[in-house]
């Protein structure tokens, strides 16, 4: 009796699960979302008081040469090579910053924490970082602040009170809107798609996915999300995961969204090798150099990103301005060399600008 009834119960509970609850997509974080309007109208920016931390008893560094270290999530991938290039460029331009890049070889929280700890001990003036985990990195950054070191984040934030400023490449809801709008244009309002992300806990990716989920529900309610899969920031793993998705969903799958600069070209490669160009679209975050072959073959129409060189460049200028005392709690904007004035948002963040959509036509004018 029980055995006969059980499957019915199971399928019932599955059905109710799907139809009533609006489950957050796997890989999304549990923070509140703030989807943008479906048309292009700008969001109102609520001004917020400064919520960053302060370097304790920092010496007067105005005009003096800064000894700084840049600690990205990991070294050896194109994206962070580009941010380091931007930082080095800005340092050279200013002439008053002595900066080197050192990061873990894998996106590992413990290795990154140990590195920051060592540089804090060695007595640098400034730390630039991109966090592998927003909470885990906080105690060690607070220790650096307590030692009088200026701390500025870029690319991936930590809890606000553990750093002074954070250079935000693009607002999460803006990136989410760009991705979902582009996707709906390519696969149609009722297309089904899957996501290849780094890991479910990586802060940026989790935030984007949460915002994408909210924006899709609001503006493109008929699109169907199938699954989110993890692929670290690993080329081969991303390729394999994309291949698996293609085989698993067959003709149902209309699009793959790559959430990392590694996953997007890998997914494009998987689709090219499976001969699915044209029937499955790829959109996602990617650097133009990696996407140029797929733009040329017509397999991918567009990719979305900010300029990581500019991101590093801005981060270096923000660190300089913080050390000089020109950027302080209450500041409304900061000068960042060739990028001009950048706006302060969300209390203690500097906004780089709106995300940029690369395509076949404009990709050739970028080299990173």
């Amino acid at each position, binding site marked *: 009796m029980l055995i006969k009834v059980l499957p019915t119960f199971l399928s019932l509970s599955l059905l109710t699960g799907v139809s009533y609850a609006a489950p957050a997509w*796997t890989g999304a974080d549990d923070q509140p979302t703030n989807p943008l309007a479906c048309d292009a109208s700008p969001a109102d920016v609520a001004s917020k008081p400064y919520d960053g931390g302060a370097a304790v008893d920092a010496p007067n560094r105005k005009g003096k040469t800064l000894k700084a270290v840049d600690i990205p999530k990991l070294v050896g991938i194109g994206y962070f090579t580009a941010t380091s290039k931007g930082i080095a460029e800005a340092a050279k331009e200013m002439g008053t910053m002595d900066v*080197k890049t050192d990061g873990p070889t894998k996106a590992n929280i413990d290795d990154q924490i140990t590195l920051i700890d*060592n540089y804090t001990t*060695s007595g640098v003036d400034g730390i630039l970082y991109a966090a592998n*985990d927003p*909470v885990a990195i906080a*105690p060690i950054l607070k220790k650096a602040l307590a030692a009088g070191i200026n701390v500025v984040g870029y690319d991936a934030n930590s809890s606000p009170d553990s750093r002074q400023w954070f250079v935000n490449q693009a607002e999460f809801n803006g990136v989410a809107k760009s991705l979902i709008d582009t996707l709906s244009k390519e696969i149609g309002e009722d297309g089904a798609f899957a996501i290849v992300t780094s*890991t479910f806990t990586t802060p940026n990716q989790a935030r984007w996915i949460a915002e994408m989920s909210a924006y899709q529900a609001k503006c493109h309610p008929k699109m169907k999300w199938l699954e989110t899969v993890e692929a670290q920031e690993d080329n081969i793993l991303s390729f394999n995961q994309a291949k698996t998705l293609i085989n698993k969903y067959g003709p149902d799958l209309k699009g793959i969204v790559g959430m990392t600069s590694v996953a997007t070209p890998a997914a494009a490669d998987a689709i090219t090798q499976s001969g699915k160009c044209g029937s499955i679209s790829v959109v996602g975050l990617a650097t133009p150099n990696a996407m140029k072959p797929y733009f040329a073959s017509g397999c991918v129409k567009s990719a979305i990103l900010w300029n990581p060189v500019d991101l590093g460049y801005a981060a270096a200028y923000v660190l300089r301005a913080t050390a000089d005392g020109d950027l302080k709690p209450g500041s409304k904007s900061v000068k960042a060399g060739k990028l001009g004035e950048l706006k302060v948002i969300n209390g203690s963040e500097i906004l780089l600008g709106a995300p940029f959509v690369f395509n076949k036509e404009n990709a050739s004018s970028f080299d990173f």
Partner: protein
Amino acid sequence: MASFAHIRSLTRHETILAMVVVFALVALSAQSDRFFTVANLLNQGRLMTEVGLVAVAMTFVIASGGIDLSVGSIMGLTAILIGVFWHNFGISLPVAAALAVGVGTLGGFVNGLIIARCGVPPLIATLGTLALYRGLAEGISQARSVGGYPDWFYLLGQGQINGLPTQLLVLFIFAITATIILSCTVWGRTVYAVGSNEIAARFSGLSVERSKLAIYTASGFAAAIAGVIFVSRVSTTRSDMGTGLELDAITAVVLGGTSIFGGKGTIVGTILGLILIQSLKNGLSLAGVRGDGTIVVIGAVLIVTILLSNIFSRDGFPEH
């Protein structure tokens, strides 16, 4: 005869390693004046505790002729369970931590069962549970991290007692206990006997199975305690915690002179191995060497130390 014994003790692996450590400490202090300070050294002690706990237990495992690759995954699973028990089930934090340690220890016990009762080679058994426990950690956590623990919980990983990092005391107690067990008890002798010649040990009437069960359970327990300390140190839980920890621990143990074939090894050697690796990592970084350069040096030091030890050992040949 006395002088002969004296010379032999000089050429013991631990003695050579101790000299290498002293040499490294002197060389690194010369490279950066921030290295040999009390604050920095204590801080390094804090950072090496998790690997240290696992390495101490791993000394038993390797001396018995086995290996435990699942320790990093057990650490990750324990970390996740603390968060889940406390945050999702609303169990009070000390009980949640104790339960999580219990599950981690159980993980080690399961390793022991598979190895001792079913006769699966340790490398294969723990390679399997490496994937299994990590998968459980990721599945249970649903990739959510849990933070916001009460302040007293951070005492373990971030606090200090009389100026000493709290967890360093834990490691100290752990290491002393392990030294006594390994060198002064029947139980410790059994570990060496099993590692030297399992069949001979069995025919000598030693309980090989029970000894193995205990060794792997202890290894799971040490990894679980390391998990609690790690959560307290970084104030959050993630399912990828402890990835690669097994290799760091095995490196320290092997550098410390424990034979990978079993039958030989001391806790003192393991601790010296740990200190050498940690001071190289830290000292080179302070001296301005980048992370990728540091791991090259550590690899080279491992090989050179083992070679030196083999050259100076009495017969001039490798132990096996």
